[in-house]
């Protein structure tokens, strides 16, 4: 196996594939990067058993400067190899596998010799045996991920809660995540007939990596769902993730349909106030802040305190307040995460009682995005 390539092109793809490679893995060969040179181009593969990423650099695209002298495959220690490539002196480099998986990397006057591993020992990528390819808008999908993934649980005791539940129907895509103290749900309408019925749970960690890869670069993402794997195709790159096993709890029944008290805020203004109040609540061992809502006076007041540091009280500036008077306590960090996900929009918060979950929706579009937060009971 021998090829030469433009270094910047290679590094860009290497960075993507490396998202899947972990230095801590129980399968030693997975600390490596797999390279396959064929007549069509160069394939880079990385995997941590949960996520696998494969990308192809085409030999026919002149911009890649890829010249395959001989085909073949090798696995190279990923971290070390990438450090080398990033520090090579010239714009191009050449890679040549010689006897016993010895790999020469040369660029200008620099020459490295690295011990490689037999690519035949590298695990096979999962097979996705479905032709049902769901086309998603890259920016919308990225937004959906960022809005839901904040609510996944980081506790492995309930593994399915560490994932986001994707439910697809002919023309609707519903994503839900909850860690049992908060819940986030996003709906996206698909062009009719885009999908058949699907019901899967995708690990939150996988979605975070995927979202980073989508970046601003890919306008379209193709999603293929099988029994226990999902495949996302971004241009020449394939992103595989294992699915979480189990049945996701029925969350639709948890979202209250009625409200006793509602308030409307500009999300960024409320966020700033919550952040101020949490300065003190974070110093307290309870991390709780309290809202007092008085519709008759059209006021909402926020309280935070720390026995050691002091307290804070701030009169907020709601756009509207309706319903009954309410005093409610909650964890400000959940509120902050939720508010971040609303960006610049105006939001409506609906409460039923001090001990019931409350919801946040954008005032503009109350149908497709909802965040739910459970309050804190204080004794």
């Amino acid at each position, binding site marked *: 196996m021998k090829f030469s390539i433009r270094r910047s092109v290679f590094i860009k793809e290497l960075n993507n594939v490396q998202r899947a490679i972990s230095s801590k893995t129980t399968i030693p060969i997975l600390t490596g990067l797999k390279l396959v040179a064929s007549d069509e181009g160069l394939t880079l593969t990385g995997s941590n058993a949960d996520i696998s990423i494969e990308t192809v650099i085409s030999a026919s695209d002149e911009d890649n400067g890829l010249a395959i002298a001989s085909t073949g495959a090798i696995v190279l220690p990923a971290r070390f190899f990438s450090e080398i490539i990033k520090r090579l002196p010239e714009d191009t480099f050449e890679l040549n596998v010689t006897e016993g998986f010895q790999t020469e990397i040369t660029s200008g006057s620099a020459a490295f010799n690295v011990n490689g591993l037999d690519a035949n020992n590298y695990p096979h990528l999962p097979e996705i045996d479905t032709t049902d390819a769901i086309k998603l808008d890259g920016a919308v999908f990225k937004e959906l991920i960022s809005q839901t993934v904040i609510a996944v649980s980081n506790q492995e*005791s309930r593994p399915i809660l560490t994932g986001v539940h994707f439910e697809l129907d002919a023309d609707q895509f519903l994503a839900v995540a*909850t860690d049992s103290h908060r819940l986030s749900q996003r709906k996206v309408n698909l062009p009719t007939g885009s999908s058949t019925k699907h019901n899967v749970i995708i690990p939150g960690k996988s979605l975070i990596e995927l979202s980073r890869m989508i970046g601003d670069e890919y306008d379209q993402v193709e999603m293929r769902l099988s029994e226990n794997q999902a495949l996302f195709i971004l241009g020449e790159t394939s992103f595989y993730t294992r699915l979480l096993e189990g049945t996701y709890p029925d969350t639709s029944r948890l979202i209250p349909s009625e409200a006793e008290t509602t308030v409307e805020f500009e999300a960024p203004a409320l966020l700033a106030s919550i952040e101020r109040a949490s300065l003190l609540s974070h110093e307290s061992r309870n991390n709780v802040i309290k809202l007092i809502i008085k519709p008759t006076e059209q006021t909402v007041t926020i309280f935070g305190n720390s026995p050691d540091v002091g307290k804070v009280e701030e009169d907020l500036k709601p756009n509207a307040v309706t319903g009954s008077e309410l005093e409610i306590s909650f964890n400000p960090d959940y509120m902050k995460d939720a508010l971040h996900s609303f960006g610049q929009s105006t939001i409506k918060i609906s409460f039923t009682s001090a001990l019931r979950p409350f919801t946040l929706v954008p005032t503009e579009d109350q149908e497709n995005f909802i965040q739910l937060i459970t309050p804190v009971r204080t*004794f």
Partner: protein
Amino acid sequence: MDESQRNIIHVDMDAFYASIEMRDHPEYRHQPLVIARDPRTSGGRGVVATANYLARAAGIHSAMSAQEALERCKEAVFKQPDFTKYRAVSQQIHDIFHEVTDKIESVALDEAYLDITENKLDLDNPIEVGLFLQQKIWQETRLTSSIGISYNKFLAKEASDYRKPVGMTIIKEEDAHDFLMKLPIEKYRGVGKKTVPKMHELKVFTGADLYQLSENQLMHDFGKFGYMLYRRVRGIDDRPVEYLRERKSIGKERTYGQSLADETSVANQINFLSDLVSDTVQKQQKHGRTLVLKIRYQDFTTLTKRYTSKDFLPNDPKVFAQYANQLLEEMPDIERGVRLLGITITGLAPLDFDNISLPLFEIKGKDL
């Protein structure tokens, strides 16, 4: 002796959780009542938190599995514990304590030591203080308590245990020796299932037998505990009522005579310890941020590793076991043989708030 100058009261609520439930549900009064999840609906899981005296007569006691309790008494009523309520009542009782003294050491929701040597009631006679407490607790909560009075904590606790329910026992210094001599060995604090047979082997059945053993022999056979027993049987206990003490950690550890050498037995013990710790954390109504795993190898090297969470860890044995197992992975080879395992939750705070959980996995029809 300085000790004779102290007056210590030990207040022990009679079958506390069960009594509260009987007070609030009169229909339970004449039935054997067990505070535990009903094993018939919980799939046999759950542990008895307490039982009323009728259920105790059927051989049911706390820490027994709910399943076993059901087997012992088919007609027993099972009531799931409501710690929020018990905490509120305990607070009421503590308010009464504070009318007497601020030197209060709470052992659990239903049990406390009070140092009444000086008290706010200005009563010299400790029996009057005891009566005041017993009556006031009854008037305000309609619950009965048993009271032990003596000149140190050990004897005060033995005294409250002497006659229950609604008992009041005073052990004066001049009576202490007789009392302790007659006391069966299993009544000595800390002499449990493991120690009793050892004691019997040494022909020790009562305090009087224990009294015959030398300090050296007791320390030889029972170590630190022997040193303590030697003093206890002589009525000596100079531990103060630790009213300033706030519990910083709750931990459980076990030493294994036969070292654990494979992952399965270590995992089993981690689950077991997690259950124990979680039980105590719940009884103490606390929660903590940090979990510490302690491991001692066959060669006596001891390692600890800790995990600290940003938020309080939910009091769930599964969560504790999960983090303990994570920490275990960072410990070097357990094949060397593990002779001790311990799990501790620290960074404790009173559970004075509770982040409400969504009923994600609850049985249908049951709401928040």
